[in-house]
């Protein structure tokens, strides 16, 4: 018997079951994305570590790392990581408000969801525009 079956049998709490939800309702979709982006950010720390270790290794290694990070593939990875970071941060703030019992009604969850995505997109665009122009 798996742990899940054991828990179901005893009527205990079970993990979020993705299949029982409409995964593409705004509410569940944003929630699932929060986790996926969180996990992606953790994997993405490898990229951050690569960059900072290269800097510690010296100017030559730093240049090599920067030429990789400055390639189209490097940009793609950093762009994805930056959006995931801003999304996870903005939605994290939303989670903290929920933790204090605020904005828990359905209309508020929808409106804060739109605001959150808007903030995450804005922060990503602003960061990239500034980063590329400065």
């Amino acid at each position, binding site marked *: 018997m*798996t*742990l*899940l079956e*054991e*828990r179901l049998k*005893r009527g*205990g*709490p079970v*993990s*979020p079951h993705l299949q029982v939800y409409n995964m593409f309702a705004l509410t569940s979709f944003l929630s699932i994305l929060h*986790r996926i982006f*969180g*996990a992606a*950010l*953790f994997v993405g*720390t*490898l990229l*951050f*570590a690569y960059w*900072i*270790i290269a*800097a*510690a290794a*010296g*100017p030559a290694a*730093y*240049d090599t790392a*920067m030429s990789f990070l*400055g390639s189209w593939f490097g940009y793609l990875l950093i762009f994805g990581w*930056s959006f995931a*970071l*801003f999304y996870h*941060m903005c939605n*994290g*703030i939303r*989670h*903290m408000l929920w*933790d204090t019992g605020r904005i828990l009604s359905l209309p508020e969850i929808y409106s804060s969801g739109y605001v959150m995505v808007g903030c995450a997109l804005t*922060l990503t665009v602003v*960061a990239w525009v*500034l*980063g*590329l122009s*400065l």
Partner: protein
Amino acid sequence: MAKMRSDLMTARALGSARDGFHHWWIERLSAIALVPLTLWFACGIVSVAGADYAEFAAWLGKPWNAGLMICFISAAFLHGKMGMEVIIEDYLEPRSVQLAVKVFVNLMAFALGIVSVVSVLIVALRG
């Protein structure tokens, strides 16, 4: 009717409740710290994007930048490790696999976090 069964019967297989709150709380604390740290980190990266080594080292050599970078790294790896633990506990079966992946993620986060902090110090102190 008097309860004839011990609480252990209902508690069994639900996992220990001993330190669940502590895990949740540390995850929130690191999340709170990461909001300003992430904004600072983003501003910092924007300011050194495309910089050569000398410029980057000069930036990271400033005490506040080195210090906040170490704060960011510590909070980020701690928060990331804790978030991954929750995901692993939610979706991975059986328990043996869960444990193995948790050990791997913990060691990974610990090692990468420390190596990153040491790297910051090397760059900052090399001058």
